[in-house]
């Protein structure tokens, strides 16, 4: 790759991550474009971009997954680099290849590395061969006929994973042999739909594990560093909801160890760019390799808060061919950071995705508070994309200060018109187990009843008064005053 600076950047993504990338790139004086499917109604990112390039597809998601179309858009607009964000094409080596053919830089690792790590099976094999710990497993491709039998032989409970998967899509826990076939079929269908690849493998499922990941960064000159770990055990259906750093579970020794293992894996893979090595951390203090994500993570801001580094800026520097210019010793850690994912999901409806218009949106501010948002007040939230609306990130001198600021930030936030997990997030933070830092990936399921908020009694009188008095017809009927009625007309929103 060339070592020329990036002057025109196409952001091939949407939502909060597109906005976040645009902010860093624009601050550096880079001219920025973004692709947008018509189904994207409003949103913050298009406002921040210098140019918006329309893309089309059978479905909105398909448009963002269309390698040829994205590469062509980059070429026509004259981009000298493309940032894929996360999801979509971020881990698809085809885009990197198509761009390379057009002399455009891909902000991410070379396709070979993405392929190695993108295939969970080859990844775990690569890591195991170099002496890093992996879990007992069975791989369908080794002998499809005996897969189900070998899967059970791993020992229940087991975890089914698509070979090409990521982000928890298509993953299922199996605790009893009866449901194995049905779950394998469902996992295969999802694998085919999301990754165009139905191959599966199973791993022994560790009960009450922690999910701990390490941020790594490598340049084109062989330098690799880590930026510490992130604790990502607060999950629903393998989807992270709250992340923090440092992890409350690790002592200094284990932290140094797990971070060095991560950096070691990245070095072994000749890793270039920003990446994340994910580990399962058992109650027994043992950890083993889960997978490596060859892209920017949703939860990268907590690492930025405690290290002071802008990981997107570092990605751009690496893509431009610059050497890191610093070593592991130059990366310091200050305080504690927590990220909360505000999602359009209705906890009262089993966390079903919710849609609607953002009638009122209030975002928190103040010391130690950062908001990475993708939405603006008034816009519609549809069901075409994933449900993440914004991320609230807080940074404090220690965990208790960060936690206090997180709760204050939630209290200062409002999102009316679309059901969200806002109050659910606050109940998680208020839970003694979270406050103590004593939780596993099973936490949310185990505490589902308490976190459901059934114990909370709504201020019924105030709410009924608000409902009645904000109803133009009821007020008019009662007061029979045209003036008041007109005033209530303001309610048409």
């Amino acid at each position, binding site marked *: 790759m060339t070592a020329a600076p990036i002057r025109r950047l196409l952001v091939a993504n949407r939502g909060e991550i597109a906005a976040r990338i645009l902010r860093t790139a624009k601050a550096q004086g880079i001219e920025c474009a973004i692709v947008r499917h018509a189904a994207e109604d409003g949103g913050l990112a298009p406002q921040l971009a210098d140019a918006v390039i329309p893309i089309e597809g059978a*479905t909105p*998601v398909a448009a963002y997954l269309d390698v040829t179309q994205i590469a062509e858009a980059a070429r026509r607009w004259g981009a000298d680099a493309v940032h894929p964000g996360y999801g979509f094409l971020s881990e698809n080596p085809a885009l990197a290849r198509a761009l390379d053919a057009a002399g455009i830089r891909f902000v991410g690792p070379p396709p070979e590395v993405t392929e190695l790590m993108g295939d969970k099976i080859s990844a775990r094999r690569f890591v195991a061969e170099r002496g890093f710990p992996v879990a007992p497993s069975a791989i369908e491709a080794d002998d499809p006929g005996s897969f189900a039998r070998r899967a059970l032989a791993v020992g229940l409970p087991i975890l089914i994973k698509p070979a090409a998967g990521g982000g928890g*899509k298509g993953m299922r826990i199996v605790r009893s042999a009866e449901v194995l076939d049905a779950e394998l079929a*469902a996992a295969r*269908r*999802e694998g085919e*739909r*999301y990754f165009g690849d139905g191959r599966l493998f199973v791993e022994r499922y560790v009960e009450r594990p922690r999910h701990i990941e390490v941020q790594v960064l490598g340049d084109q000159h062989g330098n690799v560093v880590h930026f510490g770990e992130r604790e990502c055990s607060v999950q629903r*259906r393998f989807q992270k909801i709250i992340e923090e750093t440092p992890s409350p579970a690790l002592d200094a020794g284990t932290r140094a160890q797990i971070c060095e293992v991560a950096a070691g894996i990245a070095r072994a893979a000749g890793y270039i760019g920003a990446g994340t090595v994910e580990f399962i951390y058992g109650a027994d203090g043992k950890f083993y390799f889960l997978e490596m994500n060859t892209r920017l993570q949703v939860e990268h801001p907590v690492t930025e808060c405690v290290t002071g580094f802008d990981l997107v800026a570092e990605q751009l520097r690496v893509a431009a061919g610059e050497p890191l210019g610093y070593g592991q010793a130059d990366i310091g850690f200050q305080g504690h950071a927590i990220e909360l994912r505000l999602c359009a999901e209705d906890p*009262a*409806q*089993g966390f*079903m*995705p*919710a*849609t*609607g*218009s953002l*009638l*009122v949106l*209030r975002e928190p501010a103040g010391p130690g508070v950062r908001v990475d948002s993708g939405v603006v007040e008034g816009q519609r939230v549809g*069901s075409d*994309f*994933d*449900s993440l609306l914004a991320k609230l990130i807080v940074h404090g001198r220690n965990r208790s200060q960060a936690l206090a600021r997180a709760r204050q930030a*939630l*209290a200062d936030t*409002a*999102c*009316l*018109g679309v*059901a*969200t997990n*806002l*109050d659910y997030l*606050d109940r998680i933070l208020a839970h003694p187990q979270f406050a103590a830092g004593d939780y596993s990936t099973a936490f949310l399921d185990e505490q589902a009843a308490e976190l459901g908020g059934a114990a*909370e009694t*709504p*201020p*019924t*009188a*105030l*709410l*009924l*008064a*608000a*409902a*009645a*008095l*904000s*109803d133009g*017809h*009821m*007020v008019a*009927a*009662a*007061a*029979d005053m045209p003036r008041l009625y007109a005033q209530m007309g303001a*309610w048409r*929103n």
Partner: protein
Amino acid sequence: MKKIFRLGETEHACSLRRGAEGMVLETETGPLPCALQPLGAARYRISAGEEQAEALIARHGERIWVRLRGRTHVIDAVDPLDALAAAGHHGGDGAQAPMPGTIVSVLVQPGAEVKAGQDLVVMESMKLEVTIRAPHDGRIAAVHCAPGDQVPLKFTLVSFEAAT
């Protein structure tokens, strides 16, 4: 003018009248003097009886959103007549979409006998796959969706014949 406000699981029949010193809300539990003072930018001061609080309020049709004391509340206003009508057939006559989304596959045909819990339709929303199962035993009267269809929340995907 009477309205029923649905708040979570419970419904409250309310009406508003003009009292000596301001509005009075008539509820099942008796009359409640109340007021709503706009403070600008969707912010209001609500008072109901002895209680007072500031809140953010937004309306969308007959749905009212209230952000109050760090919690978000949704109140649905229903006209007593609509409520009556709805009570007639409680969606028990079919399987409805639990979320807006896209139909992945339909697993039953009209006329088929199904058992409670049997898979009927697979749908997908925001990359999440969900299988809709039969709420009870019965015979399929009609299928109202096909793979690829975009369906709204509570859309009736499959309807059952009336049990005889």
